[in-house]
């Protein structure tokens, strides 16, 4: 037994200790418990994987540990099982490794914030649920983790709960997630109906033996419903609207949950259920389309944002779109590879942004920054590393994973490749726009920037190294037992074009924001309509508000509250009281106080008694 359960339980212990007793602990104690639990979890992952010889060619089969039977009801038999295969191994390393780094960073970032112990308690709870999600060996355990991370996301987004926009954002995240979860639950039901079990191994074994269905069929249905769940959790069209608002939470939260781990749960889930998707080509097509569209649209929105965290949020949505594109074109391992590299450079981008914000004592608007590379050099260097990584500049990590996806896209449908390349160019552009606006030029703000403490820039440095060199971790080769690699070479010019797009984006950003800073303004004014559309995120939020939220709230108020609650339920309850009072009022008339009426009643009773005795045969 490798004691897999320790991996999630350690953060859970951290949550319990900090949550229950954190109020009385001093900061160093809270730090030790919170960071220590995650670091220990990471070490345990390493130990487990080494024990399973994962790094030396082992772990070809799934390693499963059974704990106990959870639900036993008729045909339904669900047990708490954890399983590790190579896919899980990748996820575990990413989650615990990047998670540990972010925990360390948060120690510095949150040093001056209130609710210190609560923050780390929630963060640990999140790690617990995420690890359950990744380790789960059946749909239900995965779903438990799925819901749990949604809950923690809500708690952490609304961490500054005294601010209305923060609690609103938390609500939005949770509610939109729930819409996705509805699809996921329906998928689980369908899986159970058709396969009789929710265990991954059993279900996929059955699936392998069944024929491929192109369109309407059980596989398409399940796949599409799972996709609905994934779009909710991984912020794809149409359920991506919560992610930009989620930036209301503290920056470490944005880094951990909304860049590196939780939002990748959808990608992981689709990769995990790849067998089902492979049996429904239409569903795969839709996955790819959703991913591509999201990547493109989000990139366009990111072009015009002024809040540094919002830029990176849309960047996350866009990169997740890339991952979905990878999955949808059949290159599952490419999608997971990009998941890992994205975790590195996106976490770095967010943490770096947090460092900038910390340096400027809370300023997030790019228009108030500038020329900071002299003031916060370490942050500058690390963020530049992340920038080149995300732009796809070889030989850094982003290039490897993005290139693999684009190649798979070309194999699938060339037009997808071209859209993807254009988006890559936009990605490079807006990321470097943010970086140039932030670090170059003249400082436009009023604060006194100061470098972050070591506890903050150390994780940045480590992540920078990973962003630069992470591309050489050959994840697709590692995942080969699960996701067989596609045969055949690829045309070299594909790579050159995508790299050129990335470099072109950087150059354009340099032109716009360093060489001639007035250019973007004039351009925006010329294309006023387009610019307004992009700047306002295509008015999607407003549309949802009008089309979905308002009618629901109105309907709820008019129908359910006014009629249902007030009239029916209250009326019923009050009606019982009124009826009782009415009956009592009638019966009260017998108590008239008049002796003679009492006498009349006595007489009536006497007559009844005599009648009964006389006519009903009392003994004579």
């Amino acid at each position, binding site marked *: 037994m490798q004691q897999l359960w320790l991996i999630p339980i350690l953060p859970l212990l951290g949550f319990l200790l900090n949550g229950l007793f954190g109020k009385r602990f001093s900061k160093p104690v809270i730090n030790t418990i919170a960071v220590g639990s995650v670091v220990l979890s990471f070490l345990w992952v390493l130990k487990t994987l080494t024990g399973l010889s994962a790094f030396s060619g082992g772990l070809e089969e799934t390693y499963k540990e059974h704990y106990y039977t959870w639900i036993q009801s008729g045909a339904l038999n669900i047990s708490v099982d954890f399983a590790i295969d190579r896919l899980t191994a990748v996820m575990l390393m990413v989650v615990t490794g990047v998670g540990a780094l972010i925990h360390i960073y948060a120690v510095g970032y949150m040093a001056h914030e209130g609710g210190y112990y609560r923050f780390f308690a929630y963060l640990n709870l999140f790690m617990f649920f995420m690890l359950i999600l990744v380790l789960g060996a059946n749909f239900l355990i995965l779903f438990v983790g799925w819901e749990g991370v949604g809950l923690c996301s809500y708690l952490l987004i609304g961490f500054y709960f005294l601010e209305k926009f923060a609690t609103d954002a938390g609500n939005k995240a949770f509610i939109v997630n729930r819409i996705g979860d509805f699809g996921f639950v329906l998928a689980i039901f369908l899986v159970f109906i058709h396969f009789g079990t929710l265990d991954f191994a059993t279900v996929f074994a059955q699936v392998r033996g069944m024929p491929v269905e192109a369109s309407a069929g059980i596989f398409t249905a399940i796949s599409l419903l799972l996709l609905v769940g994934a779009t909710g959790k991984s912020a794809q069209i149409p359920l991506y609207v919560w992610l930009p608002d989620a930036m209301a939470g503290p920056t470490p939260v944005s880094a951990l949950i909304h860049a590196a781990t939780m939002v990748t749960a959808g990608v992981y889930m689709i990769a995990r259920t790849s067998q089902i998707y492979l049996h429904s080509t239409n569903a795969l097509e839709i996955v790819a389309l959703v991913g591509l569209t999201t990547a493109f649209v989000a990139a366009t929105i990111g072009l015009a944002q002024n809040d540094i965290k919002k830029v990176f949020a849309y960047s996350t949505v866009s990169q997740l779109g890339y991952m979905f594109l990878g999955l949808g074109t059949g290159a599952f391992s490419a999608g997971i590879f990009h998941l890992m590299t994205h975790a590195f450079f996106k976490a770095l981008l967010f943490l770096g942004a947090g460092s900038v914000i910390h340096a400027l004592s809370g300023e997030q608007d790019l228009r108030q920054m500038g020329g900071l590379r002299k003031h916060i050099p370490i942050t500058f260097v690390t963020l530049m590393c992340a920038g080149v990584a995300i732009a796809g500049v070889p030989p850094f990590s982003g290039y490897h994973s993005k290139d693999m996806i684009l190649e798979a896209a070309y194999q699938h449908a060339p037009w997808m490749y071209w859209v993807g390349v254009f988006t890559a160019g936009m990605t490079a552009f807006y990321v470097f726009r943010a970086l140039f606006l932030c670090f170059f030029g003249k400082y436009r703000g009023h604060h006194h920037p100061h470098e972050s403490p070591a506890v903050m820039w150390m994780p940045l440095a480590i992540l920078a190294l990973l962003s630069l060199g992470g591309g050489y971790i050959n994840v697709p080769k590692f995942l080969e037992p699960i996701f067989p690699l596609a045969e055949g070479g690829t045309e070299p010019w594909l790579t050159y074009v995508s790299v050129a797009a990335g470099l072109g984006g950087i150059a354009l950003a340099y032109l716009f924001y360093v060489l001639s800073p007035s250019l973007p303004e004039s351009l925006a004014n010329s294309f006023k309509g387009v610019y307004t559309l992009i700047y306002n995120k295509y008015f999607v939020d407003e549309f949802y508000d009008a089309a979905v939220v308002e009618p629901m709230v109105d309907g709820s108020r008019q129908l359910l509250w006014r009629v249902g609650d007030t009239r029916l339920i209250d009326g019923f309850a009050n009606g019982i009281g009124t009826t009782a009072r009415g009956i009592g009022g009638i019966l009260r008339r017998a108590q*008239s*106080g*008049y*002796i*003679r009426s009492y006498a009349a009643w006595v*007489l009536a009773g006497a007559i009844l008694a005599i009648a009964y005795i006389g006519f009903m045969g009392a003994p004579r």
Partner: protein
Amino acid sequence: MPLHFGPLPAAVPPSWYLMLSAILFALGVLGFLLRRNIITVFMSIELMLNAVNLSFITFSYMLKRVDGHIFSFFVMVVAAAEAAVGLAIILTVFKNRQTLEIDEVSSLKN
């Protein structure tokens, strides 16, 4: 009903006594329900008791036993006691309310 319309019979069947008892009892009830003076109501009660006494004696005659007389005796004793206490109550009520109207004594209303 063995009512013979014709020359008067020499003796009357005991059922006639019982009929008389019933009539007197009914009259007592009537007075109890319809009169408003407390004392008159009380006297109607006494009338009812007397009617019952008559019926007891009649049954005693029919069954040729003395027990009916004993019952009647006890009824009388109890009536005496009840009259004493009842009149005392009437006196108290009169002292407190200055009225003998039975309808005025309705504090237990509702």
